[in-house]
């Protein structure tokens, strides 16, 4: 009897101790929960690894020059081309072959990753920044502000992108900054639409009303109460926008509207390969694969992010 009762008490003591000794209470934020879901998503994690790998290649592009001894714009007319002046296939010296000017394709792809990622990230951030501000203002203030901004969105969405891009570049001249600005100023409209729709619904929530009843200013409500609730959608859209921007940048370069030779960039390499792909498959294949793998990784990762933020959307 007494043994039994002491046993019971012992159990209770242990329970109390466990309670007391528990780690300090740390809230599990929605962001943390999303990240935990994302970590369980194998496809997304592999994609993330690929993205990180590409980023490392971009950052350490000079390493490729170091090991091959080939700077990205160095033309090896004699060693790098055939006697008839055609590109050289993959070999011990040029692992991924050379282009028509005898430049090392491997090194150029590594340097090209810098352009693609930099433009992809910077132009996307510009796009998202403009889109979020416009969408937030339109959705929050409604009325005349909304009407004006909505018309602006309609105008921007109806502009034929490539025609205007060609016109702008012919006036202002091509270049990296130009590419970023052109992409940024013509892509924000869809972000603004998404954000506006979200804000319209969130501004009617009771917690927004609660903030108002506490005397919060419009700016505070917009950035403290509404923005964090739109952010999940924005992040999902951003990760899915990066590959689109990368492809757009490549397309602009392909059309000769982006970076000018001899800068190594994937779109430009594809453009140069046009006349040679029948005799030099590696010239078109490797830059193409680089572009494909990069955009695919971003797209799959973006899908994973979307699922992580909204587990109920299912597959």
């Amino acid at each position: 009897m007494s043994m039994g009762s002491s046993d019971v008490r012992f159990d209770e003591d242990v329970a109390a101790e466990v309670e007391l000794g528990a780690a300090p209470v740390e809230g599990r934020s929605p962001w943390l929960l999303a990240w935990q879901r994302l970590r369980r998503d194998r496809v997304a994690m592999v994609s993330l690894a690929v993205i990180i790998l590409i980023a490392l290649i971009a950052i350490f592009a000079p390493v490729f020059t170091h090991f091959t001894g080939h700077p990205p714009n160095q033309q090896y007319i004699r060693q790098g081309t055939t006697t008839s002046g055609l590109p050289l296939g993959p070999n011990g010296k040029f692992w991924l072959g050379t282009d028509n000017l005898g430049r090392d394709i491997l090194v150029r792809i590594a340097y090209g990753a810098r352009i693609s990622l930099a433009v992809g990230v910077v132009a996307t951030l510009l796009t998202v920044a403009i889109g979020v501000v416009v969408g937030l203002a339109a959705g929050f203030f409604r009325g005349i502000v909304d009407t004006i901004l909505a018309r602006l969105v309609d105008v921007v969405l109806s502009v034929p992108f490539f025609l205007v891009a060609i016109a702008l570049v012919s006036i202002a001249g091509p270049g990296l900054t130009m590419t970023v600005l052109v992409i940024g100023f013509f892509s924000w409209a869809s972000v603004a639409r998404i954000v506006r729709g979200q804000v319209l619904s969130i501004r009617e929530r009771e917690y927004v009303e609660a903030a108002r009843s506490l005397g919060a200013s419009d700016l505070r409500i917009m950035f403290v109460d509404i923005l964090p609730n739109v952010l999940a959608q924005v992040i999902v859209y951003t990760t899915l926008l990066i590959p689109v921007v990368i492809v757009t940048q490549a397309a602009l370069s392909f059309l000769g509207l982006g970076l000018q030779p001899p800068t190594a960039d994937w779109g430009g390499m594809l453009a140069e390969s046009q006349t040679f792909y029948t005799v030099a498959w590696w010239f078109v294949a490797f830059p193409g694969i680089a572009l494909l793998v990069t955009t695919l990784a971003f797209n799959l990762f973006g899908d994973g992010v979307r699922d992580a933020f909204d587990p109920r959307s299912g597959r």
Partner: protein
Amino acid sequence: MTTDQTQAVSTVSETLLHLDDVCKHFHVRGHAGGGRATVKAVDGVTLDVRRGETLGLVGETGCGKSTLARCMTRLYDLTAGKVTFQDRDISRASRRALRPLRREMQMIFQDPYGSLNPRRRVGSIIGDPFAIHGIGDRKERKDKVQQLMQRVGLNPEHYNRFPNEFSGGQRQRIGVARALALQPRLIVCDEPVSALDVSIQAQVLNLLTDLQQEFGLTYVFITHDLSVVRHVSDRIAVMYLGKVVEVARTDDIFEITRHPYTKALLSALPVPDPDAADSRERIVLTGDLPSPINPPSGCRFHPRCPKAQEICSREDPPLLPVLGDEGTHLTACHFPLEVGESLRPRAEASGPERGIPR
């Protein structure tokens, strides 16, 4: 809630909030009639809220209770009328001018899931009033927030948690803590317990009552739940379709019911004694609540009122003491009920007359 309290209130009968013929109309587009229409959500409400009392505001869904609450706290601009808070006319005050007043009047919201921002930590939600009004530094705010959490029965250690980690009752406590933070005089509770389980309702109601005594709060308590309102209120105002039809002390509303609508509403209150439940008079109103877009002429209750006569469709009855009631008991009805009068149409009222349903 008790006679003691009612008396205590009547000695301190200073008016804290006064509504004078308050109207709130919404313009809607594209309803069935086409074109523009006006929803008269609140249409001429005159009401006093006295310092330290709990005023219950009851009425069925869609009668304009919540709209009236948001007019009181000036979350909405008024279409017409006047709101006076602590002898200051705030009916036309701008949002900027209202900011200092926000410290004096707070709201508790109905939906414990919707009224807390899911992306913010509880500590930051409860500390919001301090942040908005620039009170204290980080450390002081945290201390104050933890004191508040303790006071409303939450574990202060849960400071860093998110709303999704709390139950409905706990979330409503968070809402109470937030409303309490600035030590307001008036708290407008918009159906604070409607979304909670009955057992949790009692806990939250008791918390609100304790806090009222501790901080000398005045409550406007909005609900469609009559047993709740009877439990907490000193006075009750009954709303129907954007108007107040009867105001009186809680006991008077239940014992000297004057307005036919109030009577019908009270007859829906469940009775714990099955014999009493069987024998009492149940009044089932026919028809639906008419649309506030096109409210009935005259007395708005006349299409559904068993006592309605011709004058009811012509003239809107004023809110006045009737049948020799005291000045605290106001009724808006052309044919107010006598004590014990049945609402049943004469032909059906064959059985022995029963008293007021309890």
